[in-house]
């Protein structure tokens, strides 16, 4: 099944700017504002219905120094278990793959195996180790991911990576679920005489009371 990247897959408004003022300059670009990163998003048929994008990929040109904070919910999802395991062994990460549609939580052993399979497919597509892959999932709890659509989409989405503001925006839309707006931002600040960028995207609208560490 081909990936969809039509404009209609990405048409939701942007969130308002809520970043506090400070010794930084707000810039465009989201996760691609920082040098050394590419991103993309597409519709891979992972949601229950509709054409909204549902698969996002952020890739570092070279393995990047990584850190993660994760839910302390005991019933944490397979991708959370996977990421924590990877970060115990390796702090240099190449890519973050995020799907919307199914949370891959409360899916047991089979759900964990699904997560590993997606990491293997992405590692093969990018030519890196599975220990350089981070995974995120969001959507309905208790349902397995649509692997028949997911696995074939991974090598295809890797071909669509780019470093533009539009590429970052596609990724930001692809991680949304019940969100009414896409959420992305970037800052520019001077560190040690060099211009440094911090960019980001997030999603969330309901089931929101984070308690991460």
């Amino acid at each position: 099944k081909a990936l969809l990247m039509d404009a209609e897959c990405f048409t939701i408004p942007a969130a308002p700017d809520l970043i506090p003022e400070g010794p930084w300059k707000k810039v465009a670009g989201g996760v691609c504002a920082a040098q050394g990163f590419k991103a993309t998003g597409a519709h891979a048929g992972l949601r229950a219905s509709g054409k909204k994008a549902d698969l996002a990929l952020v890739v570092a040109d070279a393995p990047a120094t990584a850190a993660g904070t994760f839910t302390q919910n005991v019933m944490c999802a397979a991708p959370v278990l996977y990421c924590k395991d990877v970060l115990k062994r390796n702090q240099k990460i190449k890519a973050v793959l995020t799907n919307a549609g199914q949370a891959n939580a409360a899916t047991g052993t089979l759900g964990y195996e699904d997560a590993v399979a997606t990491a293997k497919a992405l590692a093969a597509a990018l030519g890196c180790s599975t220990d350089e892959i981070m995974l995120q999932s969001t959507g309905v709890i208790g349902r397995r991911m649509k692997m028949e659509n997911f696995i074939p989409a991974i090598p295809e989405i890797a071909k669509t990576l780019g470093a533009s503001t539009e590429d970052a925006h596609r990724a930001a839309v692809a991680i949304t679920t019940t969100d009414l707006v896409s959420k992305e931002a970037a800052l520019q600040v001077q560190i040690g005489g060099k211009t440094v960028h911090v960019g980001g995207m997030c999603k969330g609208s309901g089931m929101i009371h984070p308690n991460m560490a």
Partner: protein
Amino acid sequence: TMLGVVTCDAAVAPELWTQMVKRASVASFNSITVDGDTSTNDCVIGLASGAAGNALVTDPNSADAKLLDSAVTALMQGLAKSIAWDGEGATCLLEIEVKGARSDDDARIIARSVAGSSLAKSAFFGHDPNWGRIAAAAGYSGIIFDQEDLGVQLGSMKLMEAGQPLAFDKATANKYLKDTCAKHGTVQVLVTVGKGPGKGMAWGCDLSYDYVKINAEYTT
């Protein structure tokens, strides 16, 4: 569920980057609430490429480290607030500031307790300047303070001071909430709990009929 990916092109030591991402996550995503339900999937991943070409930041007490730390925190706070703003069914963003606590952690816990109170959130949806529900939510936060030190301010209007309710203009306070919700703006609440050095913020949203509608139709 909330998910976040943060990228940075600064060169920063791994341990320091880990501490920055953790601190920023606590001051941002861990300081929001929409419905009190902690997800199975919440996750923030921070990646630092080093492509900016700066000298490696290693000393957490250096000016560079502090500036980078504050920039990462600001970015994550902006993103986290956008989640609260976009809370399911929300008509406004709630920004709760607490001052006078014994520590910043205490202040943040009190602020989040207020932001997460279903009764306070319902009152905001109904444009009711209900200082009592705000006071109650501060009181059950688990943080001890003297109730005679409690102050509550809504926007620029003081509703309660030194533990005593004030004779405020209810119509003006009601209009403040109505006008703010009409434009999906930010309702600001300041809670004072003493004269301590601790201050903290939390963000949430009001609780509307639509929240139930959305989640009654979203399986599981």
